[in-house]
Every structure is written in C-alpha cells, then in structure tokens.
C-alpha cells in the first residue's frame, strides 16, 4: 500500500496526482480511485455524491444493451443571429462539437428499458452547458411526437443551465415549443417522465422539466429557476445550505421522488408498468 500512501501524501502536499487514476469527489472532497467511481455508476463510494455524466453514459446506464437506435442525429445548430461576444457563437459550436463529438447538447434515441420501448432524450452538459437552443427544442419536440405516434413513454434526462443565450429569443421560444408538444403528449395519454440531474435550471426547469407526469430528481441535483449566484447578488445575502437541491424540492413538493442512480432504471420501469396498467377505460 506504499503507492496509496504516497498518493495521499502527494495530494496533501498539494502535488499533482495522476488524473487518469484518481479523482477528487466534489461532494466529500476526498480523493477516490477513478475505477471504483466508474464501477459505481459514477457515484462516490464514500459519500454517495452523484458525479455529472454525459448523454451517452446515461443512455448506456438506463437502456437495454443493444436496443438503442439514435434519432435526429443529423440536426445541427446554425447561427441565425450571427452572435458574437468575446468569441463567435460559430466557433463556440465548433469547439463544443470537437470536445463532445456531438452536434448539439442532446442525444435522442429509441430503445427499451427491461424490454419496454421508450423514446429517450439525454442532455450533454459538456456541450455549452447543456443549453437549450433551436436544436435541443426541436429534438425534444420530435421525440415527443414519436412518443405520441408509437404510444411509447417519453423520458427526458435534463442536465442544463437553461436557454442558450447565443440564440436569444429563438432559444426562449423553445420553452413554449417544448411545452406545446408535451401538452399534446399529455392529451394523447402517453406517460412523460422527467429526470432532473445536476443542474437543471433556467429555461429548462421553467418549461417542460417540472410539469411532467412524473418528476424524478437525482440526489443532490441543483434544480431551480434562477442560479444561486444571481439570487445572492439580488438579495445580498448568503443562501441557506441545501437551497435548490433535490432534497429541498422534494420537501417543498416539486418533485415526486429522489432516486439514486443505481435504482433509476428499475424505478422507471416500475412507473411505466403502473401508469400503463390502468384497466378502466373511459371515453376513447
């Protein structure tokens, strides 16, 4: 165990550790063995902190192996406003695409959960903070429409800072657009399950994410409308511990349940079974 002690002492002395082997948990600030975290669905084995995960990791975790088919993978962002801040939006898109290997901030797939067919959308926070612009809104709308057509439940795992500033009003309107299709899905009586991971804020939380039939949060996820920093600046005081975390929302009645990553797939399956198992058919 010499190597272990050595690593720990290097960390304590503020020296670099081999990041391919070790990772610091943002929850308990302990240095944990990376492989162990990965084996544990990217949850800290010491404190249960849920690390942020990518869209494909999420898909592989929740959908049956070999069942997944990507949809709308050809949709790509444009720059209708020719937006430029310190950097061009065009360049930001290109960088994000190179970094993630994705065209925009969500992946849309069809697949099965313990054999039940579902439409599934997962956010990639690594792509411009998982922000919702035209492509994200369109992919959610199309997934909801496929749900309606095929009568397969819609599941969206959100992980987003909110609307994408660089598409300005076109982004804001994606909030209305996603709510509009989700409304139709609801009228078609197909279940919509919204899973909130860390973080789900701004225009995503204030549109489809909190009005689903079932709202599930991951432990510790930051969920809210305004970001904590904006609130602190506005009210000029420090926010209480745990504010806007999943547990806080559960306590205040805005999420149905908090589910640990290792139980997520089973819970989704059980909920779909229950919600689609009604036996009393009123008017068609």
């Amino acid at each position, binding site marked *: 165990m010499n190597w272990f002690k050595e690593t720990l002492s290097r960390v304590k002395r503020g020296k670099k550790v081999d990041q391919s082997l070790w990772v610091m948990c943002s929850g308990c600030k302990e240095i944990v063995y990376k492989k162990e975290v990965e084996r544990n669905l990217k949850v800290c084995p010491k404190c249960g902190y849920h690390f942020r995960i990518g869209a494909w990791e999420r898909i592989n975790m929740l959908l049956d192996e070999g069942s997944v088919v990507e949809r709308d993978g050809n949709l790509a962002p444009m720059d209708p406003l020719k937006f430029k801040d310190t950097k061009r939006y065009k360049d930001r898109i290109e960088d994000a695409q190179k970094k993630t290997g994705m065209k925009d901030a969500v992946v849309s797939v069809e697949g099965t959960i313990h054999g039940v067919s579902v439409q599934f959308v997962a956010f990639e926070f690594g792509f411009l903070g998982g922000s919702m612009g035209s*492509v994200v809104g369109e992919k959610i709308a199309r997934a909801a429409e496929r749900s309606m057509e095929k009568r397969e439940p819609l599941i969206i795992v959100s992980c987003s800072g909110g*609307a994408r500033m660089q598409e300005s009003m076109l982004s804001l309107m994606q909030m209305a657009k996603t709510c*509009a299709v989700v409304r139709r899905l609801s009228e078609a009586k197909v279940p919509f399950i919204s899973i909130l991971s860390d973080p789900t804020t701004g*225009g995503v939380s204030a549109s489809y994410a909190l009005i689903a039939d079932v709202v599930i949060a991951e432990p510790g996820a930051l969920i809210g*409308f305004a970001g904590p920093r904006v609130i602190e600046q506005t009210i000029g005081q420090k926010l209480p511990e745990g504010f806007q975390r999943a547990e806080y929302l559960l306590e205040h009645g805005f999420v149905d349940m908090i589910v640990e990553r290792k139980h997520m797939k089973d819970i989704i399956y059980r909920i779909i079974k229950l919600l689609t198992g009604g036996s009393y058919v009123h008017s068609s």
Partner: protein
Amino acid sequence: MVKPLEFEREIYEIEKRIEELKSIGTGVQLDIDEEIRKLERKVKRKLIKLYRELTPWQRVQVARHPNRPYTLDYVKLMMNNFVEFRGDRRFADDRSIVAGFAEFDGMSVAVVGHQKGRGTKENIERNFGMPHPEGYRKALRVMKLAEKFGIPILTFVDTPGAYPGIGAEERGQAEAIGENLYEMINLKVPIVVSVIGEGGSGGALAISVGDRILMQENAIYAVISPEGCASILWRDSAKAPLAAEALKLTAQDLLKLGVIDEVVKEPIGGAHRNHQLAANILKRAVRRNLRELLNKSIDQLLEERFEKYRNIGVFSQE
C-alpha cells in the same frame, strides 16, 4: 421631474427654453410666439431623427423609461369598466401582476399584465414588476376563468424578469412559469399579447403565449437582460450595450426572426411622451387582431397557435 435619458438631453434643453419663453407670456409679443413655434418644430425634427436611429441599447433605455405607460395606464386609456381580481387562491396576491376583466371594443375581455410602479414606494409594492410564482398562478387563474366564460384574453408584457429570490424558488418559480406555458398553448379563447416595455425572459414569456404577439416599436424582448448577458459572456456588465446589440432584442429584429407578429408604432419620441396617443395606436392594433381571431373556429385557433410555436427555431438538417 424625471431625469432625461442621456441621448435626449439636447431635446430637454430646447424644451426647457420653450417653457421659459411660454412663462414670459404668449400673445404678448409676436416674436416670442414665432420663436416658440420654431423651437417646437426643431424638437419634432430632432425627435424623429433621433428615434429613427436609436441603437439597441438606447431602445433598452426607452423601454425602461420611468414615464413609459404601464399596463394599468393602457387599461385606463383603452378600456372601460375594469375590475381587478386579486390573489392566486394558494398563497398570496402578487402586485407585480395585475389581472381582471374589462370592456374593450364593446365586449368583455380578460386583462393580465405585469405592473411596474411609479416612484419608490409603489415600485416596492409592485416589486419593480418582477413576479413571484403566485403572480403567474393568479394570471393563470384569471385566464382559466376567461376560458370558462368564452372571454378573449389581452396580456401586457413589461417586466425585467421573474424575481430571483428565496421565496420565489421555494414556491416553485420554474414550475409556475412552465405551467403557464403548458396551459396557455391550449386556452380555448383568443389571446392577443402586447409587449409594451421590457420583455424579460421566462418571466415575460409566462404570460405571452398567444395567437398574436404585438410589440411596440421601442419595447424590447430577450432571453436575458443585456447586463446579465454581458456579465456572463463578457464577464463585465458594463458591456451591456454590446450585448443589447448581439441579442437582437428590438421589435424590428424580432419581426424578422418570426418571433413576433407585428410592430406597433409609438408617438414621435416614444410612448412616454404621449400616453393617450400611444394607447390609441395600440388599441387600434389590438382591436384589429382580436377581430380577426374572433372569426376563427376554436379548432383553427388552437391549431394555428400550436403550429406557430412548433415551428420556431433555426437549425440545419443534412
């Protein structure tokens, strides 16, 4: 006396001189009358030129002008017999949103709008036009009531944004906004939205899903305030003028992007210079749009409303 906007200073100077000349006494000396008329023509010329060339950042200033007419001003100038309904029947009455019913163009309408205050005292009561969840829930309650009785809905948008505070989050600001979007898309009566000042992000959108989106020519509407955008993307809120340009937040830009349906003219020099005229122009636009919508069947209305939002967005698809 309201402090003039920076770019309007010259005009205020001339207007001050006109006032001075008038106080000397009109009709006494013909040359004074002549001078006044000359200065008034000069003010008009300068205002027309100035307002034709406003930068986006200057428009932001006009949209936030403390003398600009607010929702209740338009209600008073455009409608009769307004009765305000208060409270969300859940938690509280949010005074930053007003809701109620009135007579407009010979029929009942429901009115929902953000309400800013004039002066510090009223602004604190109105929370500077920044709603809490109960404001959005009150708005929805009144809109549902309108739907039940087949009454068209007119909304007026003028908010810096939904309030970012502890209570707002605790009581579900995000859920309240989402719920309104989800319900408004399907309300079975015509909805005409007028953006009359600041369209501040989700807090504005939460009462702006409708069949026709009108926007006054000096109003703004954006996903984030220019200051907020500048502090995030430029890491410097003083870059707000640049952000205002980049965000394409003017009525003219948003008409081109297909986000709004119509730009409504304002009096020369902005709505704050002539409330009555601003209201008359807005009234005509709202009335014309509402009459068109009243001719549509409910199925057609809802289908067109859905399609309008379903089709917003720009992306490529190879």
